[in-house]
């Protein structure tokens, strides 16, 4: 993923110099090559963990929390928080990239693979709409959340996921821009037809591959 799409860095720089407008007196802050090659185009590296969301942070009591797989699928399982926590989880370390241009390297999560949640279900659609507390949704192709590429994360670092970072549970799809990693996720709807989610309706790209700089619709 991603890696194969990367153009040669020097070629990119040469193209930029030819195509773009040179900003008089701008030198920028260069990163060592090993960092540079891990940054998708237009991104910059941060140490902190900025937060992006459209509204107030929801706080759903855990005893009322459920996770559901629904839509074009049979059966349609629902897990309580207690049941969900018992599912086998994995530790994941990945770079993450936000469409607002920050990237953060080597973030570590613990989460249940989406493959595990869909295992044994009869799926009758190639698309997924993740739905969340607060009404947020994001759409993905089934290909982008299966095959070891997506998780439902319950912990960040060594601690339970904080509400402002999407706790108790968020979708984690690190190979796409981070708005696809929906916070406060409550389930996945399997769909026969793709349907744009919250940000996708508002002009952001339908897929959001950072290595192709798919920020906005039309990119």
């Amino acid at each position, binding site marked *: 993923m991603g890696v194969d799409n990367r153009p040669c860095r020097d070629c990119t720089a040469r193209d*930029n110099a030819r195509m773009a407008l*040179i900003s008089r*007196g*701008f030198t920028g802050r260069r990163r060592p090559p090993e960092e540079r090659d891990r940054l998708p185009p237009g991104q*910059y590296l941060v140490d902190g963990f900025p937060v992006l969301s459209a509204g107030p942070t929801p706080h759903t009591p855990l005893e009322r929390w459920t996770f559901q797989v629904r839509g074009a699928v049979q059966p349609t399982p629902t897990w309580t928080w207690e049941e969900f926590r018992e599912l086998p989880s994995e530790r994941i370390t990945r770079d993450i990239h936000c469409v607002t241009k920050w990237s953060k390297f080597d973030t570590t999560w613990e989460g249940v693979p989406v493959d595990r949640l869909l295992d044994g279900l009869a799926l009758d659609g190639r698309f997924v709409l993740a739905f969340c507390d607060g009404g947020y949704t994001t759409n993905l*192709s089934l290909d982008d959340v299966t095959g070891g590429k997506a998780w439902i994360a319950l912990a960040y670092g060594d601690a339970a996921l904080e509400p402002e970072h999407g706790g108790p549970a968020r979708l984690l799809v690190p190979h796409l821009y981070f708005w696809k990693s929906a916070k406060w996720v409550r389930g996945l709807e399997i769909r026969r037809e793709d349907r744009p989610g919250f940000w996708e309706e508002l002009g952001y790209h*339908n897929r959001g591959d950072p290595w192709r700089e798919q920020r*906005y619709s039309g990119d």
Partner: protein
Amino acid sequence: MSNATAATEPLHTPLAWQAVELVEKLPATARAATLVLRAPAWPGHRAGQHVDIRLTAEDGYQAERSYSIASTPEDAALSLTVERLPDGEVSPYLVDELRPGDLIELRGPIGGWFTWSSEEGGPLLLVAGGSGLVPLMAMLRHRAATDSRAPARVLVSASAIDDVLYREELDALAAADDAVEAHIALTRRQPPGWTGFARRVDAPMLAEVGFAPDARPRVFVCGPTGFVESASSALVGLGHDPSLIKTERFGPTGA
């Protein structure tokens, strides 16, 4: 991307990069400047939206950042207010180095959620932390430019009086229109005789300044993450409908 996805995607025109010229740079605070830009191909925007800026060095190295639009759609020129961040890569260039006549690349407008149009009506409650005031100022300017009668209250938090953006304009807007109130909270230093708030934004302050929840104000909160988190939680705690609260946050690293 699978063919199936491509087939269901609507056709979109890409947001193209365009060269814009700096016409004028106005000091806003000691750390911030307003860039007035000539953007002949600008498609128009709604108050609250932002743009992406791209700078290119001579060897082709590029850096991109997002900045809120300060001007109202009715203004003739597009303007951005940019705060210089201490370790910033792009903001020091825009605030200190860029000169009138220079060209930079820009694309937009971006963001269709954190916006307000006077057609939507009010009341309007705007809560800003530091330079989070910029997109909210675009809303106030839009309100004035369209002769909207929507009651509007703005609460700005800053560490000291000199850090408050657009202070004179805020005072003037409030003085000229009974339906507008501007409140300032200074968290670190207050000038002698200060009669405004002298603490961080909290629930009692929002209760005093904001509208009653049953007036169903449209609420916009913009600022650093911690500020937005605490202000929006306090508003929900006061009984404001979460679906009427729109937030925009920027991290301390949003250089």
